[in-house]
Every structure is written in C-alpha cells, then in structure tokens.
C-alpha cells in the first residue's frame, strides 16, 4: 500500500522542493532589514510548523489507536512523532544559526518561543526511551498512545501560551492582521511550507513502508515456524522425520525462521 503511494509522492516532493528553492533564491525579494540572512526563514519556519503539526497528527493517530485498538494507528503515530523529532532537531539547529547571524548569539534563554520549542523537543525526546522500555507490545502501544495524546495537548497549550507572552524578541510571522510580509515573500513561504509538508508525508510513507515490510517478514517467519512444527508433529518427531539432504533449504529456512525478531524500531 505504502510502496505504491511512494513514487508519486517522491516525485511531487522533488518538484515542490525544486520550486521552493527556485522561489526562495530567485523570486523572493531581499528583506530590507536582515538582507540575505532572512532566506533561512523559508526553511526554519515551515520546518517548525510541520514538526509541530506532526506532533499533533501523532496525537490524533494515537487517539485513533486507543479508540479502534488497531496497531496500524499506533505505528502511524510512532512514525509521525519520530519524524517530527528529527525535524525539531533541524528547527533548533537552523534557528540557532539564524539567531547567531541575526542577534549575535546562538541561543537566547529569555525568549519564550525558543525555550518553549526546546521544552517540546525535550518532552518528545522521552517518547522513544519510554516506548522501548516496555517489552509487551500491547502495553507499549497503549502507553505510547497516552503519551502522544498528552504531548499533543501540551504542544497546543504551549503554542497558545507563547502567543500570549508579552515580551517578544523572536519575530511573529502571522498575527491577526495578516502575514506581515509582501505578497512575493508570502507566496514563497507558502510554497516552502507545502514542500516541507510533502517532505514529511513522503518520509512518513517511506518509513511506514519499511515497518510494513518488517511485519510481513515476521509473518513469513512465523508461518515457516508453524509449518516446520506441524511437519515434526505429523511425522512423529525426530525419529520419524525423513533426513533431508545435506544443505537442504528446509533446514536452513527453519533455523532462520526461528531467529529472534527484534522489536520494531
């Protein structure tokens, strides 16, 4: 399912990224205040928005998992959060680079937007250790879902709290009066945001495809194991089993099938 969607998604992502890069460097005007350094805005802000939306999507999918008890929703939630954590690393690094160029400091601790994003990142950094510290798959999925829902609620609260904060060094892109930028910049920003969303969806589909393949592999192993067990039982165990020829594939396959399967990561 995921493999089929991957090709058109990858093509759309490549086209979107190329268009976004073109608009950023050849169409969008230079910022009168910051000059060329403002080009980081078209990468940093879409990445932050998509990362936060990814955390929210992870929470919604986790809620679907708790509601339907289908493991597929848990896996979708896990992959969305995993990807959002990676994007959040990118947000923190690109934000620091921009801060150094623009403010002269890599990090400003009294800035609510920066610190709140760091808190969200650190919160979700706990997600994977928590998840993989639980061995039982059912409990693992359930606890991870509860965490994902709580994290999503915290993300929304945090965002609202920061918007209400009085002091503001970090620029506010969107306010109640509009985008606070000329149309050429706004269009470029929207294209960059769309391209970033496509990158997220494509990578999400790619990783889910990989998880799907791992699941099929586990099924094949279980199937082989059952077949081998059935053969052994039907033929009366070791004494009645016909001896396979040296290097026969059946013996190889069964031993390969009984190898322990690692937890999905």
């Amino acid at each position, binding site marked *: 399912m995921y493999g089929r969607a991957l090709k058109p998604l990858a093509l759309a992502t490549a086209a979107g990224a190329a268009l976004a890069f073109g608009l950023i460097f050849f169409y969008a005007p230079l*910022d009168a*205040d*910051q*000059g*060329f*350094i403002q*080009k*980081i805005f078209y*990468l*940093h802000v879409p*990445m932050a928005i998509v990362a936060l939306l990814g955390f929210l999507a992870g929470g919604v999918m986790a809620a679907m998992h708790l509601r339907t008890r289908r493991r597929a929703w848990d896996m979708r939630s896990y992959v969305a959060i995993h990807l959002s954590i*990676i*994007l959040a*690393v*990118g947000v923190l*690094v*690109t934000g620091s*680079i*921009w801060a*150094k*160029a*623009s*403010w002269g400091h890599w990090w400003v601790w009294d800035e609510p937007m920066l610190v709140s994003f760091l808190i969200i990142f650190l919160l979700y950094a706990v997600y994977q250790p928590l998840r993989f510290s639980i061995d039982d798959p059912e409990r693992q999925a359930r606890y991870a879902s509860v965490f994902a829902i709580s994290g999503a609620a915290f993300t929304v609260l945090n965002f609202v709290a920061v918007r209400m904060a009085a002091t503001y060094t970090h620029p506010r892109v969107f306010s109640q009066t509009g985008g606070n930028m000329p149309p050429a910049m706004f269009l470029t920003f929207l294209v960059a945001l769309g391209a970033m969303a496509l*990158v997220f969806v494509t*990578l999400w589909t*790619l*990783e889910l*495809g*990989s998880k799907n*393949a*791992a699941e*099929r*592999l586990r*099924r*094949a*192993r279980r*199937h*082989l194991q059952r*077949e081998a067990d059935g053969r052994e039982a039907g033929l009366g165990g070791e004494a009645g089993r016909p001896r396979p020829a040296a290097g026969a*594939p*059946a013996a*190889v*396959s069964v031993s*390969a*099938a009984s190898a322990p399967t690692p937890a999905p990561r």
Partner: protein
Amino acid sequence: MPAIPLETAGIYVAAAYIVFLALVLVYVAIIGRKVGRLERELGELEQLGGEPSRDRQR
C-alpha cells in the same frame, strides 16, 4: 540591526540549508538500507518456505 554582508550571510544560509539536506539524506539512507535488507530477507524466506502472499491469504 543592519543587514550583515552577503559573504557572511551566505555562509550562515548555506549552513542552515546543508543541515536540513543532511538530515533528510541521512534519514533516507538509513530507511533505504533497512528496506533493502528487509525485502532481501523476505524474498529469501518466501522462496524457501513458500509463504503465501497477502493476496492469496485473503
């Protein structure tokens, strides 16, 4: 704050975009390797054991 010179700004901008590209490429490479390994193992198992495909199971 006055805009910093283009040469200096260019380095910062390039650094930010390279960080993003590196993140995506490393991620894709890791997942790609994993998918390749899984598909290979799956193919071997299916060949050896005759695992019915999903379509046939339905």
